[in-house]
């Protein structure tokens, strides 16, 4: 697989490295990212999809409408995205794994349900196939504008979120199963923040033959007794609550007690917040997935995620060919943000698909010297290999990114 000289270290840290090694019997297909996202969900045991069609996530809805009835599941085409994610939350509360898929305009509408699902610790998976914006933007062009929106996917604060981003069709398949596993284990919605290129792109895809034999899939369990909300605890693997089993569970939008009763007291607010934040913060070691190339001896490190990481990685290799000791960090887990990947005190060049600069701000915050962090923003189109190589070469040799058309470097 590797196109690198053996001297360059390459590392992929993600649970599917082992999954792919263990499960080798199956079909090899030429398929789209939306297909991989759908099949990953089915393999993970998803049995409800409720959503509203939107480019470039529509194909997920169409694939789901065909696949779910075949496995005894339900496809619901809702009146809007608000209904879509709330219906998913309802299905998950009833004991079925559920997913919805959308793009930016729908993702913002879902934040009502997103906050409700966070507070009530409802496992769900949300796919956001980002396109360039703001608002409708260009429906067929990729963007990376929801990096922060995915982190702050509800109003009110006092929560952490889990956000993953694939950079190939194959990875979209495994990562979707991983997203479902994390949703179950952390009792929270998980966003798969993908983009128009990964969604629409057709690539080589391996699908294991028997989904029932995948022993790494975390099955749905039901919490049948109090406490329904272990407020004040950061415990993982608490079974999700279930409505319809006569437990007397209470689910609401309010700050709650461990029974789920609404309460207006500081102590209760604190205990709930402790749980929602620390069940994620205290287990960050189980959440961080990433890829690196040659970071140990690099003089400059490029940072990217999603589809854009594909050309950025090639740009890093091109820079190395030109004699620049360049490294590469591809984030797969975007949130909680993996600060530990930016421990080396070298210049980082953050390449992302927006001009406002989002990911770059987190790299500035976590790097030893934020002043050494450079930004290469582009809009509606992936960075070219030449742009990335020129940027890395410029930073390595002069400390500056050269003037390049369509590349913005200012972060305010």
């Amino acid at each position: 697989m590797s196109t690198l000289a053996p001297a360059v270290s390459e590392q992929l840290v993600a649970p599917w490295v082992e999954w792919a090694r263990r499960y080798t019997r199956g079909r090899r297909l030429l398929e789209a990212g939306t297909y991989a996202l759908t099949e990953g969900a089915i393999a993970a045991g998803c049995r409800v999809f409720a959503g509203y069609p939107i480019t470039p996530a529509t194909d997920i809805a169409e694939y789901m409408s065909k696949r779910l009835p075949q496995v005894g599941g339900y496809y619901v085409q809702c009146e809007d995205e608000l209904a879509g994610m709330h219906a998913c939350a309802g299905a998950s509360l009833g004991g079925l794994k559920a997913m919805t898929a959308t793009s930016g305009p729908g993702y913002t509408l879902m934040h009502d349900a997103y906050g409700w699902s966070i507070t009530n610790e409802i496992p769900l998976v949300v796919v956001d196939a980002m396109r360039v914006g703001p608002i409708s933007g260009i429906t067929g062009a990729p963007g990376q504008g929801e990096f922060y929106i995915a982190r702050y996917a509800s109003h009110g604060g006092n929560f952490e979120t889990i956000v993953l981003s694939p950079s190939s069709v194959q990875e979209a398949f495994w990562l979707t199963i991983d997203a479902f596993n994390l949703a179950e284990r952390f009792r929270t919605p998980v966003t798969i923040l993908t983009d128009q290129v990964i969604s629409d792109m057709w690539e080589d895809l391996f699908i294991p033959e028997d989904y029932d034999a995948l022993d790494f899939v975390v099955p749905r369990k039901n919490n049948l007794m109090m406490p329904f909300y272990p407020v004040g605890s950061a415990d993982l693997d608490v079974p999700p609550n279930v409505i319809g089993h006569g437990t007397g569970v209470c689910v609401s939008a309010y700050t709650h007690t461990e029974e789920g009763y609404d309460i207006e007291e500081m102590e209760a607010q604190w205990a709930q917040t402790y749980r929602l934040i620390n069940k994620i913060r205290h287990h960050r070691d189980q959440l961080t997935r990433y890829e690196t190339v040659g970071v140990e001896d690099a003089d400059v490190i490029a940072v990217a995620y999603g589809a854009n990481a594909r050309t950025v990685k090639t740009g890093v290799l091109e820079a190395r060919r030109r004699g620049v000791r360049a490294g590469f960090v591809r984030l797969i887990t975007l949130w909680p943000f993996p600060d530990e990947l930016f421990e080396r005190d070298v210049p980082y060049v953050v390449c992302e698909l927006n001009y406002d600069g989002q990911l770059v701000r987190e790299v500035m915050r976590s790097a030893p010297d934020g002043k050494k962090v450079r930004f290469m923003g582009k809009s509606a189109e992936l960075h070219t290999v030449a742009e990335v190589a020129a940027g890395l070469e410029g930073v390595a040799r002069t400390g500056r990114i050269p003037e390049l058309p369509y590349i913005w470097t200012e972060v305010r």
Partner: protein
Amino acid sequence: MNRLAKKYLRPSQIPTKACHGCGIGMIENWLLQAIDEMGLKQDDVIFGTGIGCVGRQTFATWGGDNFGATHGRALAVATGLKLAQPDKKYLIVVGDGDAASIGTSHLIHAARRNLGVTVICEDNMGYESTGGQFSPTTPAGYVTNSSPYGMVEPGFDPCDVVKAAGATFVAETTATQWHQTVKIVKKALANDGFSFVHVRFPCNENFGAYALGTRDTLKNLEWIYEHTQGRKADGTDADFTWETGIKHDASNSRPEFSRLMRDMNARVKADMKAKQK
């Protein structure tokens, strides 16, 4: 505590935080009477609410499983929940804001799908928990805290909306009609499909005080009663009339939503099996 409350509700969650003289507790008691007369148990019924007076005062009072959705979304949640738990009865107890304003799109589409739930729209004719602003069910011309010169917009009748959308049971009643309401709720719960029961009740603290000029519960109930009769106590005509009773009864006349979905799945499975042979 009365017998029905002891049998069905949570002692720790009642009495509710409702204001003195509020109709919400009384109507909930009538719902319990209907549930009891149908022989339903706590585990048979899932209780869903929204936001506002009705959501806040009824949430978690029910002894069985409860959910309190964000404003307007109770029916969206119920749409997914019904697929996972199709054999339960659903009481979706919401206000006029939830049903007739912020959540109307879900109301319409739940009716269209014939989702197997009973919506009890407890209508206090305005947004009373936020201090008494008008809603789409506030009678035209009436003064509220956001219509100080009288409500100039026309309202609408949510019963007409859900009937047009395909609801299979639609009824209207008020907080002055105890036995009629119990009978209607029993019929609504017996429909394996979308049932809508619109129950008007007085808010004394806001609608009563600002629109009717009194916080006296009995006077406000009398105002409601007069409008069910079209005549005031002094024999003159009321300014408008609410026609209460069953508006539309097509109970069990078409398949319920989750049944349709399961039937389709059975057909798909059978076709797959036939192809394999």
